[in-house]
């Protein structure tokens, strides 16, 4: 098996599992899938899910049914930065439609697509609990709120610079 947690990730895995009673290690599945997704390039290939099943001593199907139920797990490869833009009522009445159209235009992709250079993925999501700071999107573990066209431009530029710096 090629996909495996490194030492640091394994330490985190052990920290997560001991939170639950003995024999109930399956309870750690959601946090462990987050860890796996973060560790293996932002998505969960079948191999990663099988690996997690082995670690928790559960059947692979128990992992698949969970991974397909929750919206935060990506079952297909995604770009380096995933723009998850909220489109639910409170964001919509605060102008999210315009922001979504603007992002589509600036990145040249439709919702669900990834830019050709593999840097950005655009996803439309439902309420993220930032209604008072709308329009907004989630990028990785942080929220980008009070979005305007200017702010979107600045955010895209910021991530492009990060990619350049890493290359």
């Amino acid at each position, binding site marked *: 098996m090629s996909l495996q947690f490194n030492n640091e990730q394994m330490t985190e895995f052990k920290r997560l599992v001991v939170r639950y009673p003995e024999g*109930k290690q399956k309870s750690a599945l959601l946090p462990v*899938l987050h860890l796996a997704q973060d560790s293996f390039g932002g998505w969960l290939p079948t191999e990663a899910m099988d690996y997690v099943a082995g670690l928790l001593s559960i059947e692979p199907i128990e992992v698949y049914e969970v991974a397909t139920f*929750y*919206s*935060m797990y990506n079952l297909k490869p995604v770009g380096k930065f995933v723009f998850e833009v909220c489109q*639910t009522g409170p964001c919509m*009445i605060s102008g999210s439609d315009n922001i979504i159209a603007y992002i589509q235009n600036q990145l040249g992709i439709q919702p669900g697509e990834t830019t050709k250079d593999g840097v950005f993925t655009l996803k439309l999501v439902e309420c993220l*609990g930032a*209604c008072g700071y709308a329009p907004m999107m989630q990028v990785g573990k942080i929220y980008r709120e009070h979005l305007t066209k200017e702010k979107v431009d600045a955010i895209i530029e910021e991530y492009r610079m990060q990619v350049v710096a890493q290359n």
Partner: protein
Amino acid sequence: MGVKLLLEKANVPGIRTYDVYRREGGYVTAEKALKEMTIEAIVEEVKKSGLRGRGGAGFPAGMKWSFIAKPEGVPRHLVCNADESEPGTFKDRYLMEFLPHLLIEGLLISSFALGSNDTYIYIRGEYAWVATILEEAIEEATKNGFLGNNILGTGFDCRIHVHRGAGAYICGEETALIESLEGKRGNPRIKPPFPAIQGVWMRPTVVNNVETLAAIVPIIKMGGEEYAKIGIGRSTGTKLISACGNINKPGVYEIDMTISVEDFIYSDEYCGGIANGKKLKACIPGGSSVPILPANLLLKTAKGETRYMNYESLSDGGFATGSMMGSGGFIVLDEDQCIVKNTLTLARFYRHESCGQCSPCREGTGWMEKIIQKIELGKGEISDIDLLWDIQRKIEGNTICPLGDAAAWPVAAAIRHFRDEFEWHINNRELSQTSNFGLQHYADPIHVPA
């Protein structure tokens, strides 16, 4: 200025850290509870306080606590519901982000009262940075002897664990949350057995909302009777309202439930009026699942009396002319907003979030979304309105969990109060694609600009 019990210290610099929280009187109440009070006395104070669950259902918290089974040798668990996902609601996030130790102190007292040695905070997965803030606060509290073994020499052990969800509104429902905490899909369980008898890992479990558990601190500090004097009627204490939409000052506000809806929207202390000088059209006062009200019924009840921001007044008139306090997610719509479009986004939300277990909800939510989408796109028929009404009625009350009701109510209320806007969309197919119905006869009867 209303009474502040939860957010009183929210603006103290550094209050997120243990040191500042402690210096400001933090954990003194936990010391009092653990060292000087019996479990029965704590539960009694919570009952006397009249505290109602702040997650949305409004069930009396003290009563919920008293249901917990105590079989010999079986561990019990307190689970804090931080899966805040009801559109319009972001109050728990605020509490956890800025006052994590207030929640931990409330959790400690509550865990002591319920006999929970391992307490879990189930937080929605997207609040990843809030989970980190909580974990840091838990570590600080543990270092300072307020969590861990033999707390304050009382012999009571308590550990708090943060469990991140992964994106599913349904996990805010307590039995779905329990399933999810066990590492499964968030499919709600059939009740009974209730969680108080068989909850997580089939052990007696109490699931309470973040705000409910934070409110335990002021209740124990001041005593249940004093707490109950704040507010009015069965709406005791203070409530956090997360206000959003087309207002000048969106944000989280603590109110004492004696303020009128009109003052809440228009006073500078709270929402600061409708943004951009627009007029108020409608409002969803308690999170997206509660009935939307047009301006006239929002500010005054059908009897013409002032409507107040509390459980009883917001529901005055039932669903015919009233709404609900719900989670306190207060969504304001101005005159430019389209009710059909707004209802469409909510129908889409509930279709997306249905767990798929019960056919009325699984099939009905998708069907409603398609019909509303058709109307929104100018392709609807008048008969579609009656069909929508029929579908929502057949979902309501016919599902294992309240998500079915939550999906049905917004559609029902939109048709009930804004039927002519739906008809206008259908009768003006082209016009409806370029302009909105506007206010028509729903104009705010009080704040009509000169």
